[in-house]
Each structure stands twice: as C-alpha cells, then as structure tokens.
C-alpha cells in the first residue's frame, strides 16, 4: 500500500528545501575510466538535489560512516598538575540521508540496535537522532554477486522515515510511490504540497513493479536463510577456515566496508603542550591481527583462521542473536573489497556442502 505519490521534480524540491537547514548526503556518481563498469557511486554531501543520482546501482561504502565515522572524538580533556577535566563531545549535525537501498536500511537497523542494546551509545544516538532517512527501492540486483535476496534484505519495511519506489521503468523516473515510516518523514514530504493520493492504477503499477523486482533476484546461498545460523554452528571445526585463511591478508577491508561491522578501537591524542587532548574512537576489525591481543603478548585469536571464523560467525549468527537485526545483508561489499577474492557467500556454501 502506498501512502502517496510524488513527482521527481517535487521530490527534488523537497530535498533542496532540506538543504537550506541541514546537510544532505546521497549517492553521487563518479566516473572511474579504468574500472569496469567505468562508474561508481559514493555517499557524499551534496549542495543541490540535482547532484543526487537516485538511480544508482550501489555505493562503494555504506552510509554507516555517517553514524559511526571512521574516526571521531568522544571526549575532549584538559590535564592540569592536580587532575583533569573532560567533557564528552559530538559533532552531530542535522543530516538527511537521501537514497538508501533496502540492504543498507536493514544494516542501519542493526547498527541502531547494537548501539542501544544494553545501554545507549550517546555518540551514535546523537547522530541518529539528527538523521532523516529516505530509502529508495532497487528494481533489480544492483551488481552481480550480491546475495541480499538470500539474506531477506532486498526488501525493507522499516528503518526509514520515507521510502520511495520508482514508478515506471527507464532511467528517468518521473514519479515515486511513497511509504512513510515516521511522522517526521511524512511532515517533511507533505509540507511542500506536492504529494498526490495514489490512484488504483498507481497501486497496480507499484505491485507489478515489486513483482518484477522479486522475479529478477536469483539465489546464491545454498542454505535457507533460517537454517544459516544452525549450519554455521555445525561448521565450527571445518577445515575450510584454515584453508581459506591461507589466502587472507588479515587486512580488515571486509570488516571496514561491511555495513553491519561496528567494532572500534579507542585511543588518546595529546597536543604538543601535553595538556590538551582528545579521546578518539576509530573503526577496528576482528580480522586484524592484534584485535584480541593483550598486554604480555597473549593473543586470544592469533590465527587468521580463527579470525575469519569469528567474522563469519558474527555475520551469520551472533549479531542477529544479539541485536535481533541482520548480521549480514548480502550487499557483497566484503567480497568486492577482498583483494584475495575471499567470498563470504562462497564460504557459506562450501561449509554447507560439508556439514
């Protein structure tokens, strides 16, 4: 069921309206002549709605960076001869994220839960509270190798303030079907007066569009989604871990590009005066060699195989169990980022063959 219809022109007008008061982030197209295909998209701040490319395939990095930046200051402190003063800080600013595909919407839900599970992380929540999320549905697999449908993440019913569904085909979509996910989203979009009531024909067109979409997704994963955690539990001692780890650089790229990986490191920085400083957090990854290293040199996960297993267990089982969100949304960013061409879904399938 659609809540409204809006024309592309009206929609972009609403985005330009947002730009008067806040930062707008969305998919921006970049030419990369030496890549195949010679174009990529990145979530970046825009200064005009026209810079957004809502027909994008996929963004190289997920929108995670706007909620959990690669690096952020948690505390500013001042050291004195007889003590210290410290205050928590945030650079959170009102931001609209325009153009998020269902997979990334699912991932944002996971992050929301991880950073509120058993106590809020105020630094995350400060950003989250100021974030308006506008999803846009994808009509077909954005690129070969994705397994979002296997992960039940190619359709999203939550995680957005507004969800847009392109109506009609072709590159130049002129109208979007709209679903509202929050009063905030509704208020923003309706304020321009450009929302129309969906007609019966619109509903039919939207349903047909969804059917075409569903039919366009194949399946890659050989294990049914609901059986994946149990299959993974049985594969704990598989040789596949060690065999695959021989190729693993422990470079952590797979962690860092993953939209649901949220582990971080904390460290202090001092100015040259040694009086002023900051406590910062930075993205970390469980594939990195020192992730579980403690003083004295003991490493609780010293082998690349144990780290690889840990990551995939988190993706397929543990994050889901802990947060109720999805640990893996099938976006295949890890597979694309891996210069050893280690593929998460391929590992799932190899393990399934064994156990």
């Amino acid at each position, binding site marked *: 069921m659609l809540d409204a219809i809006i024309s592309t022109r009206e929609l972009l007008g609403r985005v330009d309206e947002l730009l008067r008061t806040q930062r707008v982030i969305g998919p921006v197209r970049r030419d*990369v002549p030496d*890549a195949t295909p010679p174009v*990529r998209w990145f979530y970046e701040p825009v200064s005009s709605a026209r810079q957004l490319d809502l027909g994008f395939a996929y963004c190289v990095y997920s929108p995670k*960076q706007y909620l959990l930046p*690669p690096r952020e200051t948690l505390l500013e402190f001042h050291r004195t001869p007889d003590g210290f003063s410290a205050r928590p800080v945030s650079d959170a600013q009102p931001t609209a994220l325009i153009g998020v595909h269902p997979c990334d919407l699912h991932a944002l839900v996971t992050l929301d839960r991880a950073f509120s599970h058993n106590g809020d992380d105020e630094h995350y929540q400060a950003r989250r509270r100021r974030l308006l999320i506008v999803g846009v549905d994808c009509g077909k697999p954005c690129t070969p190798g994705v397994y979002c449908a296997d992960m039940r993440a190619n359709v999203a019913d939550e995680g957005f303030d507004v969800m847009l569904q392109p109506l009609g085909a072709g590159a130049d979509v002129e109208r979007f079907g709209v679903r509202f996910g929050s009063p905030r989203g509704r208020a923003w979009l309706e304020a321009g007066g450009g929302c129309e009531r969906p007609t019966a024909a619109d509903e039919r067109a939207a349903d047909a569009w969804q059917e075409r979409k569903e039919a366009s997704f194949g399946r890659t994963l050989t294990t049914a989604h609901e059986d994946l955690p149990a299959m993974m539990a049985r594969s704990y001692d598989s040789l596949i871990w060690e065999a695959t780890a*021989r*190729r693993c650089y422990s470079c952590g*790229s797979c962690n860092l590009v993953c939209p649901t990986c949220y582990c971080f490191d904390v460290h202090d920085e001092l100015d*040259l005066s*040694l009086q002023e400083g900051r406590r910062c957090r930075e993205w970390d990854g469980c594939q990195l060699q020192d992730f579980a290293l403690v003083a004295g040199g003991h490493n609780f996960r010293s082998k690349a195989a144990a780290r690889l297993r840990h990551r995939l267990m988190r993706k397929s089982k543990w994050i889901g169990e802990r947060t109720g969100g999805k640990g893996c949304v099938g976006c295949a960013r890890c597979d694309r980022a891996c210069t050893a061409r280690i593929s998460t879904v391929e590992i799932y399938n190899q393990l399934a063959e064994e156990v």
Partner: protein
Amino acid sequence: MKPRIAIFSLTSCEGCSLAILELENELLDLLGAVEIVNFREGMTERSWDIDVGFVDGAVSTPEDEREVTRYRACCKTLVAIGACACLGGVNTLKNRQEMESYRTYVYGERARWFPTTDARPISAVVKVDYELPGCPMNNREFLRLVKCLLAGVPFALPNYAVCVECKKAGNLCLYERGQMCLGPVTRAGCNAICPHYGSKCEACRGLLGAEALAAARLNMREIWKVDEERVLADLRLYGAYQGDGSKP
C-alpha cells in the same frame, strides 16, 4: 628542561628532514616543546649532547658507518626516519649491481676516491630505538612519536595493513581499477596517500609480516594469475631489508 633534538642525514635525498619543516602548523609548537641542536637542513650551529637523534638515509659508505656510530654514541634515543634508514630504501638498488661498475658510472675517473659499501638500514650497524619508515616518512607520525617521547610513553607503529587507512579514507580500491596494489601486505601509517591519489602502494613502509607475504604469493599465482616474482619485486624497491631481518 626541554629535550634536545638533532636531525642527521646519511646517504639520502634528505626529503625526510624536509618533511619535518613541512609541518607548518605545528612547527612553532614543536620548537616550543623541544630544543633543536643539530640540524643541517635548518640551522648551522652544532652541539653534541642529544636526547633524541633522528637519522635519515641509508648506511652506504665507510664514512656513513663512522657517522652513525657517532650519532649512536651521543644520542640517548636514536630514531631511524624514512625508508632508507629503516629498510635500506632505493639506495639498495646498487647492491644488486657490480660495485665497480656503478662506482665508475657515478664518479668516473675519481671512483677510487669514493669508497662505498652495500647500502644498509641503520639497524644493520647500530641499535635503533624507533623506526619511522616511509618514503618520505609521514610527518604526522613523526609528530606522534615526538609526543610519545615528551609524554614518556612507548611509541609503536600501526600493526595493520595500508588497506585499513585506505578504507577509512573512503577510496575506491585500486584492484577495482586493475592495479596490483601492495597495500594488503604493507604496514599502515601513511594514510594510504598513494592509493588516495590513484597510484598503487609500493610498500615504502615495509612488509607487515610473513603471513601476509605468504598470502600474497598464493593470491598472485592462483587468483590474479600474474608472475608473483614481478609483483613482489616492487617490495624490494624500498624494502630490501625488512624489520624482521628478512630480504623479500
């Protein structure tokens, strides 16, 4: 008492010393926090009672050997800066040629006036307390080391690959652009500056470890179907000598 700091150059382009002068925003604060006593690029007055000595350049002549031994003797803490001082650097290209031929090539008739040896990192000759690799070294990392020394806490290089910083910087991986980047096997600390500007990493900060190198050999052969030796030859450009003493 401000720590007394000196900066020395052996056989090098002195780019690492210049990188310090390029710390424009922090240079004044730095000069406020330390006393610079012996710095050929920056000043002329010399003094020989030194808390921290930074040395760039490889040891490549008998004269270098004598000099670096002297630096060691007069510096409480000795820091090797740059790929030459830490890994041998590009100077080591000469190690793979006949000594007589390159001496004559460089110095012609007067070659016998210029004795030379294999180019080696400083640690091959004297004990080194810290190393800041890179060609040139990263001056932010230099600053971090200085702060650690001032605060009296140990300094450590990042123990992860360049890819980590490359990802944090939001770059498109060069493998997606058909380049065999050495980021996955190279120690981070440069903010992935080369990949950021579109050129592949050439491992000027040295290898991350034997495991990553073994993975690289396997992947080059089996996944990328390229001549592993040719790709790994890049490693030797800056890093003929690696931290663990191995020669890749």
